[in-house]
């Protein structure tokens, strides 16, 4: 567990280090060579070999624009397809994840702070943690059916485990010296918990959140590939069923973009919340 936190802090610190020196553009440009090369290679290989399922990059981009970004300015250029398909995906994702996080932090705290509850829930949590989350789809369908509720429940159900484990481990593993120092200040229980225990546990909570974001993105796709009639996942399946390969790629690009944006947002929040962890680390180098 500690190693995991270290990895995250190290990664975040790395991202931070990159942020120093040079102008914004210069910093950006220096990271692009491989990406540009990969895209060029894609374009050339796809054009030369002309396989139907591996279309040139630019063709996909064109289709991507047509599919998602062809709307009127009043819609911020977002197309109707974007609004009917991507928005539900995004709201389901956000709702499911948030529920998962809230419940996860709550249960994790209970487990860490109440030893008996912790002991009772531990095997179940371990099981849930090891269970490939998509296998829970039948469970979600059982309780909530296949509509939006079912999907949100499904995402929450998958996202909750790493948050529980991270919260419990973080709270339990808190540095005893830090806790003693807080106790010596005769803080009231609530302050002690919210202002000391939770921040102390935050690296591991964040590590749990990071895993849960990835799980949530995976699950929304699974849910939508499995059975829905709207959503980006559905768009991909539908274009695949129609052998509309460009359309499939265009959907995949949108999902990729969604993944990148989620990740980016997360890193932003993480850097803000874990500043006190990350910056001293950078300085130490």
């Amino acid at each position: 567990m500690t190693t995991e936190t270290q990895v995250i802090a190290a990664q975040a610190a790395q991202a931070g280090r990159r942020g120093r020196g040079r102008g914004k553009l210069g910093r950006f440009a220096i990271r692009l060579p491989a990406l540009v090369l990969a895209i060029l290679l894609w374009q050339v290989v796809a054009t030369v070999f002309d396989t139907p399922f591996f279309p040139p990059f630019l063709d996909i981009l064109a289709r991507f624009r047509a599919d998602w970004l062809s709307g009127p300015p009043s819609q911020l250029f977002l197309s109707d397809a974007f609004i009917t398909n991507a928005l539900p995906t995004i709201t389901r994702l956000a709702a499911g994840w948030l529920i998962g996080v809230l419940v996860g932090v709550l249960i994790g705290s209970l487990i860490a702070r109440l030893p008996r509850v912790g002991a009772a829930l531990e095997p179940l949590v371990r099981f849930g943690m090891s269970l490939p989350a998509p296998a829970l789809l039948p469970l979600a369908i059982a309780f909530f059916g296949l509509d939006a509720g079912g999907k949100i429940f499904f995402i929450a159900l998958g996202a909750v485990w790493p948050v529980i484990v991270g919260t419990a481990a973080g709270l339990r593993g808190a540095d005893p010296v830090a806790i003693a120092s807080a106790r010596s200040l005769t803080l009231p229980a609530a302050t002690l918990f919210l202002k000391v225990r939770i921040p102390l546990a935050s690296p591991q909570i964040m590590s749990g959140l990071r895993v849960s974001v990835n799980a949530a993105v995976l699950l929304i796709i699974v849910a939508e590939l499995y059975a829905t009639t709207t959503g980006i996942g559905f768009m991909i399946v539908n274009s695949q069923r129609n052998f509309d390969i460009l359309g499939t790629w265009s959907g995949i690009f949108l999902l990729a973009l969604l993944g990148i944006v989620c990740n980016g947002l997360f890193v932003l929040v993480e850097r803000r919340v874990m500043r006190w962890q990350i910056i001293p680390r950078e300085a130490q180098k």
Partner: protein
Amino acid sequence: MNDIVIEVQHLGFKYPSAPKPTLGDIDFSVARGEFVSVVGPSGAGKTTLLNCISGLTRPTSGRVLVEGEAITAPSSKIGIVFQDYSRSLFPWLTAEKNVALPLGSRGLSAEEIRNRVSGALASVGLGGQEKKYPWEMSGGMQQRVAIARALALEPHVLIMDEPMASVDAQTRSDLEDLVLGIWAERGVTVILVTHDIDEAVYMSDRVVILSTPPTAVHDVMEVGLARPRHQLETKDDPDFGHLRSRLFTAIRELREFSAAKP
């Protein structure tokens, strides 16, 4: 004679996981305004003793009275400074907020909190550094924030567990003088645990020497050196040399004795 602030009475403590008691039977008291150092071989149980005195740990036997009241939980009469500032300060809070944190729940007005915080930070020479995060400060500065945090609570007793151990030798002598200054100015009672014999002699009115576990008080040494003390003059005083030799020999004997035991 003097007004007694802390009484440690037949204190005993055993860690549940340890085979034998760490603290055997410890008995001593500290007068108001006194500066007492506690020394003893590594593993003697100095930290354990401080934890018992400050109410962080419940003793297995005996008790601790602070101003006549038995201590069962951390009390606002006692401020503690730990050795490792990097673990006792909260890195997610600025210096100012670290100091203010325990004040928030004491029914003080915002005004008064602000005054106490800036007063405490000024005492330790950190006026103007309020907005810095611990990790933006040197080790000595961080330890001073930790001291300020304890001071802001206006405790009657200040307990310090090797507060100077994690800083370099030069910062250390600065901190020693800072602590002596605060002690003299605020009239607080101080119990200082240290490994450093020179420091124990230099700082204290009395030095309590602990034995090895099950630990008891091996000896108490009165330090009659004049105050205020001075890093060069006091340490050049022949009496200082004699006191440090006595202490050095006592601890070396205790260590050798305990090393021979198992």
